[in-house]
């Protein structure tokens, strides 16, 4: 499978059938609390748009959507004026919910990596999500916790944001299916600084592990506090911890034994094609890519490949994306009929010596396929 992806990338020029010029604006949060993730999205998309398949030229403009639904919708309406073939849409669930009706009116496919479950459940044909949804990633997280770490009495710690609440529901669901009720649950505001009370309560509740679903910064604070207090419990974190910019703030020792779910781990460079992506990303942005960047890259590339194969109108592209399959760098993407394109997640673990994680498990959500 990965070899095919690599081949596709290398032989993209040969497979070009039509020459086309398309507009594909990038609308992502560049300010506000999701700016880090938004920057990953932007970089992944730009990398794809600046190296399109042969015969395709892509025009793109980058626009900040902030964090409010209203600004995101304005940005989409504005982009719609340029007759785009599709847009790269923000990963913030509330913004996506607001953009969906507009996409429907304007008939523009949205390429996003938002994990919020609800966005593909609105019956909207123009949504394409290239990141495994929360159900997929959280099932992977919970299965890994139960199967590999032997977790029986987990504490669940999550964020009060959309990302956190959405993931929390799926975690609790997955645990329930295995007959497990968390011994302790706590929702944290992103501004919480000191994690000692949470850890103390988890310990007092008799937790044997922490299942964490926090954004990058709070995840890092939690790991630091856990290491400092000698917590000694297994920690299985969410995709927030897979971002290199977050990991760089932690000492390798603080990461020892910590695992996290994500869609892919480009810095782990599991394949030559992934290594190629990693090198290209580092050259262009002088930073390390995360799973969000790769997913947005894959998603954008899938759209550009479809254009190269003749889907040069939004309608044709929508059709191509909803029916086709694409072997990307992280996984093979194919719609489940609702616009969910990604159906597998990975678990990465840190060995305590390096900041580069190892991919220790792949999970595919069979039910969704």
């Amino acid at each position, binding site marked *: 499978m990965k070899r095919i992806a690599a081949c596709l990338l290398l032989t993209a020029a040969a497979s070009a059938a039509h020459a086309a010029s398309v507009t594909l604006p990038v609308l992502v949060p560049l300010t506000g609390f999701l700016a880090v993730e938004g920057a990953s999205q932007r970089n992944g998309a730009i990398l794809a748009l600046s190296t399109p398949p042969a015969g395709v030229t892509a025009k793109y403009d980058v626009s900040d959507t902030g964090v409010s639904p209203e600004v995101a919708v304005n940005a989409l309406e504005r982009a719609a004026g340029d007759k785009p073939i599709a847009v790269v849409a923000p990963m913030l669930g509330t913004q996506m919910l607001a953009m969906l009706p507009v996409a429907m009116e304007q008939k523009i496919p949205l390429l996003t990596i938002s994990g919020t479950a609800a966005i593909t459940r609105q019956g909207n044909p123009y949504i394409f999500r290239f990141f495994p949804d929360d159900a997929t990633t959280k099932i992977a997280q919970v299965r890994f916790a139960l199967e590999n770490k032997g977790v029986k009495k987990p504490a669940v710690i999550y964020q009060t944001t959309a990302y*956190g609440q959405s993931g929390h529901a799926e975690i609790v669901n997955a645990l329930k299916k295995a007959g497990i009720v968390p011994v302790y649950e706590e929702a944290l505001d992103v501004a919480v600084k000191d994690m000692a009370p949470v850890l103390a309560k988890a310990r007092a509740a008799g937790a044997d592990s922490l299942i964490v679903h926090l954004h990058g910064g709070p995840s890092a604070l939690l790991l630091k506090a856990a290491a400092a207090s000698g917590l000694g419990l297994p920690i299985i974190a969410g995709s927030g911890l897979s971002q290199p910019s977050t990991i760089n703030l932690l000492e390798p020792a603080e990461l020892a034994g910590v695992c996290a779910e994500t869609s892919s781990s480009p810095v782990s460079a599991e394949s030559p094609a992934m290594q190629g992506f990693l090198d290209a990303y580092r050259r262009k942005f002088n930073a390390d890519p995360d799973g969000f960047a790769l997913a947005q890259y894959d998603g954008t590339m899938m759209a550009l490949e479809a254009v190269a194969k003749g889907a040069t109108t939004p309608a044709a592209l929508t059709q191509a994306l909803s029916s086709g399959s694409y072997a990307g760098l992280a996984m093979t993407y194919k719609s489940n009929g609702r616009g969910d394109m990604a159906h597998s997640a990975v678990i990465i673990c840190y060995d305590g010596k390096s900041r580069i994680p190892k991919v220790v498990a792949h999970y595919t959500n069979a039910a969704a396929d």
Partner: protein
Amino acid sequence: MRRADAMLLLCVAAYGAYAFAAGSSYTLRVFSVAGIYALAAIGYQFIFGQAGALSLSQGVFMGVGAYASGILALRFGLGFDAALPFSVGVPVLLALAVAVPVLHLRTHYFALATLIISQMVLLVAVEWQGLTGGANGIGGIGGITILGMPIRAGWPLAATVWVCVALGAALSAWLMRGRAGHAYAVLREHPAVAGAIGLDGGRMRLAAFVLSAAFAGFAGSLYVHVIRVISPDVLGFPVMVTLLTIVMIGGRLGVAGAVAGAVLVIELPEWFRPLREYTLLVYGAILLLVVVAAPGGLVGALRLLLPDRAPPAPPALAASPALAELSGLAALSGASGLLLEIDGLARHFGGVRALGGVSLGLRAGEVLGLIGPNGSGKTTLVNCVTGLVAPDAGRVRFAGADITGLRADRVAHAGIARTFQTVALVDDMTVLDSVAIARPRTDFATARAQAMTLLDRLGVADIAQRRCGGLAYGLRRRVEIARALALQPRLLLLDEPAAGLNETEQADLSRRLRGLAADGAALLVIEHNMAFLAPLADRMACLDAGVLIAQGTPAEVQGDARVIEAYLGRPAAVSRPA
């Protein structure tokens, strides 16, 4: 409407026409969003502009309205119009609940209290996932429907929103026309005067707060059907900051300011969108520039550039209905025959004794002169009688009824009027309106006509249409006295009415005051100017260090050894160095 305001509205209308003509769905959508913010900002002007209280909960009222409408649409399929009673009613109820503990707080304390309440509402919305969908919010809310008719995005939606804005603006202008607008101006600029002319400041602030919430709730319900998702973002502080910015940039008063401010503040970042990450930086810089350069907002700046034409002619004097005569008041006096009875009134400030048990009586038709050195407690006495300051001990009876500790506006309604030591008129208000505002229970047109009669009585009818700000001191004094008379008081308390008047003006004022007494009113006049006071007063009383030291005819009091000592002092018992 003032020319500057009309000009601003014209600019907005021109931009709107452009947006409709261009017809791009982007331009129309941004214009629609601007309209929604304009509505919320018009509401915000009630509490922040009219009542002058820095509320930081307007954003949350808008958000609560949005949630109410959104949740009703999702759970019960209620359309925008059917849900309106709730999307307006819920924020109003919230405002009422909040008002009880915090509305009496001033300036930053009120601001912080409303900010904290906003934070609590936001936390509840995030935590109560079953109802609100939590931080994820809920999507799939339908567009605006009116009587079952869906309103399409694009120009129909923009038109609907802006019709609502026009209705809201008209309602706001109608509510604040005439008496109400002037009443709020007095409350904002001189709260003590508001009470003294019978305005219930607490109720007015509450009304402004509730109106703010109602407008915000309405704007919120539009918002949720335009954005078509409910999410906690609408409850967040950025929305509040946007509304505050709109009103500061547009203008705190006048719907034109709110509307123009909203269009500018909402459109500006969109115009700068090509600057990408620099957009908000430039926005911040422009905001700073405007606040520094145009303190009164766009409206204020334009009003300087476009002064109003000559005001319309005042109501004709001849047509003025006469005020009810002031005579026949003696019958209302208490059993003792006294209209006002002050018994043992005492008041301390910190450790300082301002009044130490003063007893005084005043008959109808009598002029009592109250003298005493600076700091002897004269003004405190008047403040205690009129309800501005609560006495520590003692009673005040007026026309037989105990009015001790009664709120200032109730005292005013009971028939006691006063003037202030420093003339307290609203600079931006006309002389006529300044007086008419104090006419109780009268429609404003009649009140204005009656005010003309009073102005004429004090010899200032010719300046009725001038704004108080530019008037000479003597004229301001007379306007203030006319305003006090507009209450048709049975007792008039004048605090240094002659200060700053020249001798001709003093003589004139004295004559007019005697005329009032002859009509049956009782007058208590605080004055230092003996040349003015002695001929005017029937009796005089002298306070020193909070105690009554003399009472009697003017001649008796002026000749009293203790009075002379209080004023002129004894020579200091110190020897000069050789």
